[in-house]
């Protein structure tokens, strides 16, 4: 259920509370909405203003006039630890975002002490303030600390610089380590309270009030003054609208004043209009809301509800008054704790569905500061994180699955579905169909991927199947060998044919040669024949001349020729 609570702390006084339930009580958790009632109390605490801080798991209360911080566990509702410090603590704040793992303490001597509650590491800064640190705030990015002191100055510190093991490469070497990065010194008297705007961006503002009756809005990222407001008296406490539209101050006479930034119609943001920076502004006295009775005493602390419409103020007489912001007047008395109320903190409402605000981890117990340790920066080598730097926390299950950034897990998808996602059903249907087929032909080969139980029938079925497969394998092997031989023969044939072809070619060459030879011989023979003819003619003529019978000589020559040319085949064709 949606509910909103505030937490109030008191400083011990001589009076005794009327109700027994409030005896000895120093810190009260009070339900504000929907019904007013006291939720829980923490005992034995007496805190001055600006000395109470709340983390999701713990309440830290610096004890007034002591060098002690009481730590109360919000889960268990008891006091978990009493942590001593070397100096008196004058102000306290929690840094570290939504988990609030770093406690920042402002000391009497003007230095800050940072305590990492999950590791026990503790860091002290230089004593940059000349007087006690009376107010401390941490900006919404948890990167800057603003500390106000009664020496009228406000220092801005970089949490990164203070906490880092490795000192960032900085041009600030001329400054001592652990010193502020900026100082705002426009106030003329002790700082009473500081409030910081709700923006995480670069143009966030801080508002500070001091005992010189001024409230100054300024830019803590640059140290630039934005607006000076001349108040009608010394304001004692301060709170800022959730949208940074206005701030509210409380006075020593118990009255409240609202100071609206947006009264002018300047086109520029009124705080960032340079023409107005140097002009102090006096908020109209009518914006001052009178308390219901003059005996309520000074307003020590202010806080605003989540919607910013109700302002609560804690007063000297122990009363918590609520004021209607819209109607600009006192509404009702919310609670009465007898002792002067020094701190009022509105807690974030429970029951809002807001995943980004959900804690991913929780520290159930704090680790007390360790002094005698390598963690104190002097003894360790520069820039390294010591091996025994451990962080104690409880990692909580997150509503949003951490792996959701990658791809949606089919299991979680099915798990949170109203029945089963369509894809899974389709897969199932397909598998059923396949299974059906698998069972229909019992020795079908497709069922192997479906079944995974180890039943006997199945083993048998598998065996049968294996045998079958083996049979198939052997036949395949046979076929393969046949194929192989066939291939062998064909290649043999091919080679033989190739050889034949070569032989034939050779034969053709041979024939060609023979033909040529024959041609040549023929020519030779013709030549010879012609020669012989001429010889016969010559011989015939010679015989005729001698008077002998020419024909006889011719016959004799013919006989010789036949002997000579009888072996040649073309003799007959020639004749």
């Amino acid at each position, binding site marked *: 259920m949606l509910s909103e609570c505030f937490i109030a702390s008191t400083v011990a006084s001589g009076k005794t509370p009327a109700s027994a339930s409030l005896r000895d009580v120093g810190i009260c958790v009070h339900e504000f909405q929907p019904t007013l009632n006291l939720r829980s109390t923490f005992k034995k605490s007496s805190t001055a203003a600006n000395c109470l801080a709340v983390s999701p798991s713990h309440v830290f209360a610096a004890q007034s006039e002591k060098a002690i911080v009481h730590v109360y566990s919000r889960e268990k509702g008891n006091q978990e630890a009493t942590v001593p410090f070397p100096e008196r603590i004058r102000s306290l704040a929690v840094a570290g975002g939504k988990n609030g793992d770093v406690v920042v303490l402002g000391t009497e001597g003007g230095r800050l002490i940072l305590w990492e509650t999950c590791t026990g590491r503790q860091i002290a800064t230089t004593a940059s303030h000349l007087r006690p640190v009376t107010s401390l705030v941490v900006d919404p990015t948890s990167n800057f600390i603003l500390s106000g002191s009664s020496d009228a100055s406000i220092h801005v510190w970089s949490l990164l610089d203070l906490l*880092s093991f490795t000192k960032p*490469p900085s041009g600030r070497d001329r400054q001592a380590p652990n010193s502020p990065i900026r100082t705002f010194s426009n106030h003329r008297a002790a700082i009473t309270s500081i409030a910081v705007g709700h923006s995480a961006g670069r143009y966030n503002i801080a508002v500070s009030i001091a005992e010189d009756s001024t409230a100054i809005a300024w830019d803590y990222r640059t140290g630039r003054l934005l607006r000076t407001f001349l108040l009608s008296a010394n304001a004692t406490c301060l709170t800022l609208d959730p949208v940074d539209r206005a701030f509210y101050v409380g006075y020593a006479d118990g009255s409240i004043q609202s100071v609206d930034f947006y009264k002018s119609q300047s086109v520029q943001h009124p705080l960032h209009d340079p023409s107005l920076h140097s002009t102090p502004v006096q908020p109209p006295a009518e914006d001052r809301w009178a308390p219901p009775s003059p005996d309520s005493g000074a307003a020590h602390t202010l806080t605003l509800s989540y919607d910013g419409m109700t302002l609560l103020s804690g007063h000297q007489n122990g009363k918590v008054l609520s004021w209607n912001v819209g109607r600009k007047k006192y509404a009702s008395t919310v609670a009465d704790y007898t002792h002067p109320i020094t701190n009022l903190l509105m807690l974030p409402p429970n029951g809002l569905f807001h995943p980004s605000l959900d804690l991913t981890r929780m520290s159930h117990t704090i680790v007390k500061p360790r002094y005698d340790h390598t963690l104190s920066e002097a003894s360790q080598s520069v820039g390294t994180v010591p091996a025994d730097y451990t962080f104690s926390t409880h990692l909580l299950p997150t509503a949003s699955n951490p792996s959701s950034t990658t791809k949606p897990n089919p299991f979680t998808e099915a798990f949170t579905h109203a029945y089963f996602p369509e894809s899974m059903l389709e897969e199932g249907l397909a598998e059923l169909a396949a299974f059906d087929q698998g069972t229909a032909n019992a020795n079908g080969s497709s069922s192997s991927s479906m079944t995974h139980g180890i039943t006997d029938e199945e083993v048998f079925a598998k065996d049968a199947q294996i045998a079958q497969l083996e049979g198939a394998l052997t036949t395949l092997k046979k076929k393969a060998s046949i194929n192989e031989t066939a291939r062998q023969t064909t290649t043999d044939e091919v080679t033989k044919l190739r050889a034949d072809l070569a032989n034939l070619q050779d034969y053709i060459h041979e024939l060609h040669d023979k033909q040529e030879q024959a041609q040549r011989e023929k020519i030779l023979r013709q030549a010879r024949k012609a020669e012989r003819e001429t010889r016969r003619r010559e011989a015939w003529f010679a015989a005729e001349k001698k008077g002998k019978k020419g024909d006889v000589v011719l016959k004799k020559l013919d006989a010789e020729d036949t002997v000579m040319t009888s072996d040649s085949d073309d003799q007959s064709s020639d004749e």
Partner: protein
Amino acid sequence: MAYMAMSLHAVNHRLTNIPVKQLPPLASSLAASLSNCGELLSTPQSQKSKSESDNAVQVHKLMTRLTSLLQDRTVEGRWTAVVLVKALVEAGQWEILRGSEPFVRGLMGILAKPDPVATKKMSIITLTRIFHLTYQYPTLVREITTPSLPGFITAALNLISIKPSSEPVRKLKQNAPLVDVVLNAFAELIARHPTTFRPFTGQIHSVLQAIIGSTEPTYPEPILEIAQQLFVSLHNCAPKNTSGEEWKNACRMTISSIHATSSYVLRAVVEQWESVDPSLRQLSLPQNYSQEVGNGPDALGLGSWQGLPAGVNRLVVLLRMLSKFLKTATASSVVVPLGSILDLSARLNMVTYPSDGDIQANPQIGRAEREHLLTELPRIHVASLRLLVDLVKAFDDAILPVAQTILEQALWVFRAEKFSREVRAAVYDLVRVLLIHMGPCMTKQGVSSLTAVLRSCCHDLLPPSNNQTAAAEKPDPKSKSKSSQTTVNADSFLNPGLKPGRQLSSSPSFTDLKRAASELLVATLSHAPTELITPALRAEIDRTIIMTSDKNAMLASVLNPFTNMQGRGVSTSIMPFVARSYPAEMEVEALIRPRMPVLINGPGANGYSATDDDDEEAEEKTEAMLAPEPSTEASGFLKPSSTPSLHQDMMDVEMTPATSSPPLNKRSYAQEVEAQNPAHFVTTEGAQSKKVRVEPLETTKTPAQPSLGAASPATFTGTAAISVPSSSITATAAPQPVAPMTTSQPRAVAAAAQTTGDDDDDDDESDDEMPILNIDPDTDDEEEDE
């Protein structure tokens, strides 16, 4: 209700009358109608009226039918039953859950039957869901979950593994398709029922070891992931109050296992790293360099591996496992060894790819192995960077003390291995999450160290353009030799216009890299101090943002404009590009035409009197501001109507006078204080007389209601002079029209004054309801009139 009863009846009818074989195709629609009957199924069965008892009978019938279907002979019947049981349980919640014991038995029976994988998978999911839903009801846990959970665990383990003997160790089955589902179911249940799981931790542990340590067939990513998560979750089962110790031991063992593995994997190079942990400094194991790299069973009991690829795989798996330690919910408070984790990541990130070949090589290892290692380095670094991302996410703002250390490690890796796309994406992611936490505090040196990262980020985001390379070549045309000309793509000369479009469609899109790069730009602009970014880099970033038209980055750039440190020149803004690109987006509208402070105005033109203003004016103005008292009576706790009252806007003024006057009388102390102020009386008078005036105003519905925002000065005078009985004309106060209206207003008021004949009224009305008007001339005029 009637519809639900009918559809329930229809479901029953179909379930009983349709043959079981034909049910599966209908299962989806049946389940859908069942899940729509949630209201009926979850109402307690009181059986008062007839219809209710009829409904109860129908529900009973359905449950009986499903129970019998779960034991049906056919697989189709069982499959349908599983689907419908899940739908029924989801819809019916407690009313169904209390009678779900037979379902649980039936579903467990299916796990032992030779059903298709899908049926078993769905049975496991349904069973897990039933156990999960019963968790919030202790009686149901006692009756249903606790008795059946051990049986379920055994059955599920049997599906994925074989228990060889009586010893509490299991052997993982080869090729078990249900590993994924079973591990998911265990991971879901183990944190809720640690004592029931305790006897099985040994068996589950051995199965997980086999999955995580498997090198030969490596398991797919989702299975590995869920196995690692379950491994981490096993600490839930530790006996009372030792779970934190158990977690710490497992985490330490993982770290030392990673150290041991990396000693072998990285043996080819000489490491520069020196541990901050003295116990790890002596960790130089004698190695046999002649053998192939490999390692036996390690601290976690994972199997041995051989060869560099297996070693790198193991290292990556172990690093992921360490991430899982930071991502998985723990049973109680645990001590995270932050120092050791950072020591480990420093060791891995210090061995980087040599930029100029000057890596310190181990002379005993061959070149082949060293080169192999160097090519595998980006993969190791991606895993270690992802580990650091998870570390930052787990610790969010508490990371501040070590943020600078982590950033430096990221930059080591980036400098050496920015050629790898995966390394770039991982570095972008890491720098982004770091900037969110430490950005505002960064110094000039810190920001300038990011310059290289941001430049390559811009480069990755810009579409690949060939014009760019052409432009790069242009400055030295002389040096272009003939040989280089031959390599130039001829197409780029022929048709330069067509080229980019074709290229864009074909080039692979690295969505992960692009996403990481654009997110980093947004984070840089919105978290880092923009005045420390050099003008050149800022110009490059802005150019990239405009080219990619990334809305978030554009808004981040506009909201964090470049501020000129020297004061020279005009600060530029890319606002016009946003207005052109996304004219209809809400963020752009809110940016350009802000509603809250500027458009809604109080009655005064300039609220505060500067101190040098004279008293009379101040009085008049404060009167104007005091008069309207916006009502917040109606606005309850966190009701949406609660915002406007800080500024006296019109609507409130019209409604409130009736309610605001009684409180005025009650002002006891307040009145005392303010009694001295004469202006106060004017106010009360006004408020009381206003009561009279408001009624006719509301009934007659004058045309000039406050919503008439667009009324121009000209129409103003017209309407006022003719008909409007009062000067209740308003306009939304755009700052610009103020000047012309001041001239026209007096006449309007005069006319109104004549028609109503009540000066006081008009005085008040005009003050209340004409917010944009400058009061000074107005009141002057009034005085003249009187």
